[in-house]
């Protein structure tokens, strides 16, 4: 086939998809003209229905590493990896079940638009709110960079175009559509992304099975050649410590991720929330098991070990190229790229709200500065675009160890927000001092142990971070002053 034609066939589905994403955001902006800008731009006016709520929560949560690095590890480790990854099925019903209604009720009482608004109101502290906003922006930038890099590497490996071309194609698209359309556009595009991820998984699975000579054939060969894949500890490749920390890192503690909790502010009614818990759990399990199982079955397509293909990150790209017909490759990589952009968009809008709503507008209000609606609109869109552009530039010359940054940021956010949100919203005694010690102290300890490479029993530093932030929270809450009655009346009527 002629190379120009080949490139065109590869790129067409992607270009069309990105075009649809931008079109959605322009449509949303047009429809929301005249409504309260801050509320519509940062939480979509609390209008999400159950299906979209489920999809946007799942899509933001599932990142490009769930689609590339994860199944690559499954290829190497086997069913133990799926057994570990499946703990993520808890993430959606936990965050919606524990925080979904609490946050929705409070947001309406307080006119809150962000998670930081709620933290500020609960603990009556501007300093704590500023720390929270700072932590969000800092760690989100790390995560977003990892998503950009992961997506662009995959694009380059599959299509043969350059890394930069991929970054420009999907990276600029996501920054543009998020800046224009805000939260509502993020939710709708996330829904499209989640659907494309599932289609991508099904397509890839079908062609992997076909190329490997069918399920029977692949599995019989694996049973003989790779017995380690069938053992939960994978002959030592999967120590128990990984299982333990994954329960914390990608299971239980994810309920406190601000990008997930903010979704509790965004939905319309409890019927929607109830639907979303069920739909979200179905979808997140389907994606996790589907893509990781495909990773194992990729042995039917790739006969060597992961190292022969340049490491686990190259397993999925190589499999796509080898197993799928050229006219479908472009469609297949939309899945992982959708995972990447849907995470970026979700983080980008929350990072922007942290700067505009939590810092700037609050400052203006305190100092009695009048900010015109037109100015708020301009600044919000500009801030979203600037953060996006900054991360884009960092991703052009990516720092090494980028994959570590992703998990590092996850753990940092969890350490900072887990107890502050959980105890803050469900425990009357929780107070300002406790939250302050927990968020600042816990995060600093977590970062320090990460920097020093210090581990206890070889467990990921999240275990240290989350334990220290709990202890600090309790100390602060018992030493410090109780929250005032007016606050408690709002949060615990």
């Amino acid at each position, binding site marked *: 086939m002629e190379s120009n034609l080949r490139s065109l066939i590869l790129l067409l589905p992607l270009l069309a998809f990105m075009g649809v994403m931008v079109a959605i955001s322009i449509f949303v902006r047009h429809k929301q003209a005249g409504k309260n800008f801050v509320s519509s731009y940062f939480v979509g006016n609390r209008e999400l229905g159950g299906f979209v709520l489920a999809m946007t929560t799942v899509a933001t949560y599932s990142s490009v590493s769930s689609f590339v690095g994860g199944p690559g590890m499954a290829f190497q480790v086997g069913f133990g990896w799926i*057994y570990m990854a499946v703990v993520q099925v*808890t993430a959606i019903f936990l965050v919606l079940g524990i925080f979904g209604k609490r946050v929705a009720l409070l947001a309406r009482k307080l006119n809150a638009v962000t998670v930081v608004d709620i933290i500020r109101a609960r603990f009556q502290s501007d300093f704590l709110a500023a720390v929270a906003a700072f932590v969000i922006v800092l760690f989100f930038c790390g995560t977003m960079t990892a998503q950009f890099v992961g997506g662009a590497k995959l694009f380059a490996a599959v299509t043969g175009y350059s890394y930069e071309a991929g970054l420009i194609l999907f990276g600029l698209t996501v920054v543009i559509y998020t800046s224009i359309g805000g939260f509502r556009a993020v939710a709708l595009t996330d829904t499209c992304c989640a659907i494309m991820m599932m289609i991508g998984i099904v397509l890839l699975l079908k062609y992997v099975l076909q190329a490997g000579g069918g399920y029977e054939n692949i599995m019989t060969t694996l049973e003989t050649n790779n017995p380690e894949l069938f053992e939960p500890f994978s002959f030592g490749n999967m120590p128990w410590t990984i299982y333990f920390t994954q329960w914390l890192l990608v299971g239980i503690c994810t309920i406190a991720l601000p990008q997930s909790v903010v979704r509790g502010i965004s939905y319309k009614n409890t019927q929607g*929330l109830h639907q979303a818990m069920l739909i979200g759990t179905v979808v997140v399990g389907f994606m*996790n098991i589907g893509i990781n199982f495909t990773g194992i079955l990729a042995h039917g397509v790739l006969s060597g070990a992961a190292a022969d293909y340049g490491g686990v990150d190259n397993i999925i790209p190589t499999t796509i190229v080898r197993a799928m017909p050229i006219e479908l490759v472009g469609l297949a990589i939309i899945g992982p790229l959708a995972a990447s952009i849907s995470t970026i968009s979700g983080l980008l809008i929350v990072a922007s709200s942290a700067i505009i709503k939590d810092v700037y507008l609050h400052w203006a209000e305190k100092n009695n500065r009048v900010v015109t609606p037109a100015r708020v609109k301009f600044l919000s869109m500009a801030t979203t675009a600037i953060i996006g552009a900054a991360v884009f530039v960092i991703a052009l010359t990516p720092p090494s160890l980028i994959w570590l940054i992703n998990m590092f940021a996850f753990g940092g956010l969890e350490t900072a927000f887990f107890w502050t949100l959980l105890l803050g919203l469900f425990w009357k005694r929780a107070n300002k001092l406790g939250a302050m010690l927990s968020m600042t102290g816990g995060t600093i300890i977590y970062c320090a142990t990460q920097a020093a490479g210090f581990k206890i029993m070889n467990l990921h530093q999240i275990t240290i971070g989350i334990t220290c932030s709990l202890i600090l929270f309790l100390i602060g809450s018992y030493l410090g002053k109780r929250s005032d009655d007016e606050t408690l009346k709002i949060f615990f009527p």
Partner: protein
Amino acid sequence: MKKNNRAFNDAQKFSLVRREAIYTGLALVGLIIFWFVAGFGTASLDVKIFHLPLWALLGTVGVWFVAIFISAILSRKLFTDMDLEGDDDGK
């Protein structure tokens, strides 16, 4: 979903929501136990279904199905529909 009673006051709503959060927490504990028993608990058995060892089937697809079941029970049986607007919103 339980009866569609929209006449809850704030205090009632918050106590319902607290109870729902506790149910969710208990559901998590149940799922963790199931996950542990289904996977590690059956890893020594030499049973295979569709070429998959029993632990790999129960510990992955099994956990997923149980999680779906749990979400259905929580959201359809234990959680209550309520009006999210409070007694004194917007004041």
